[in-house]
């Protein structure tokens, strides 16, 4: 089971649809300061159901919608879709490929979709549970956060292990 692709549209600095496909092994994302690398990290967290705007560096969740640039008008909604290859069945569902889509507009209306079918946040979290993916787990380490493992309380580390268990 691995991440096959991520597609961003209207999310942070990606106003028009951008899709990255990933293979097995080590993928490295490089670029200058402010180019958009961590915005991709945020997109994965967000698609997996992140509820706190602070975790994606916003103050309100609408902050993730592309706000415009020089010669670029703002967008009215943000959408991220991640596709996870599930050939080994690790995701506990029958599909060989699981697509998770999240959308949000400026009126704060949003939705989640699993393989194209509208669903609730809890359904997404259900699918991801037992894999260690998602926010309580340790599979995404945001910029500046790696030392948190060492500076956090012992009980927080326990939660990390429980999530993996």
């Amino acid at each position: 089971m691995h991440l096959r692709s991520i597609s961003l549209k209207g999310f942070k600095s990606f106003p028009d649809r951008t899709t990255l496909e990933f293979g097995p092994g080590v993928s490295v994302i490089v670029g200058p300061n402010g180019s958009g690398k961590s915005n991709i990290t945020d997109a994965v967290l967000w698609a997996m159901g992140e509820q706190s705007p602070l975790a994606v560096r916003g103050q309100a969740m609408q902050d993730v919608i592309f706000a415009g640039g020089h010669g670029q008008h703002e967008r009215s909604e943000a959408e991220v879709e991640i596709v996870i290859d599930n050939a080994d069945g690790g995701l506990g569902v029958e599909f060989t490929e699981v697509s998770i889509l999240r959308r949000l507009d400026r009126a704060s209306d949003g939705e989640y979709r699993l393989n194209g079918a509208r669903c609730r946040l809890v359904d997404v979290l259900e699918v991801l549970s037992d894999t260690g993916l998602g926010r309580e787990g340790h599979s995404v380490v945001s910029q500046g956060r790696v030392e948190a493992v060492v500076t956090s309380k012992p009980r927080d580390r326990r939660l990390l292990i429980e999530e993996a268990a």
Partner: protein
Amino acid sequence: IRETFEATFAATARHFEEVVNRLFPGGRGQLRLVQEDGQGSGGPRRILGAEAIDGQARESGGLADDEDGEDREQAGEDATPEDRVGVELEITPAGKSMKRLSLLSGGEKSLTALAFLFSVFLARPCPFYILDEVEAALDDINIDRFLDLLRSYSSRAQFIVVTHQRRTMEVADWLYGVSMGGDGVSRVVSRRLEADREPPAVAGAA
């Protein structure tokens, strides 16, 4: 199949000692289960060490099936809610004697955190990991140690690493270059770094 916390902790603790040997040559590390005081002022009290869990599983025979096992250890003491249980990290870099985590250097803290994360990975791998600039505080020698470990694990899980360091780029199987024009729009260009694979696809604005 849902493994219990105890089994996962035991496996994590075993791996932690090995990973620390690789990231801190000559150093030692250990995980401990502790019980935290409500006020936090007395400091955590040790209730189980990594070896003790395995020993106890053999004694009581059913510990692996009983998530409240560690509370039985506390029988006779105050009833302690299970959520006070925590995992304490102990690390002693080569040649040093004190173990206060807070006094470690920036690079040492990052390495310790990475050792812990890799230990959980070895115990219970996630399908993919996204690591954003986790090596920022590491000097070149430690970056190499971290990258060696990463490459050795990359057959078991997919690692997506965000970095602005050239050394890290060198271990990529797939490389994605992100840039931003004068219009505030990010663009991504990608290429494979091994001749026998298809290049990863990146579709820009439709």
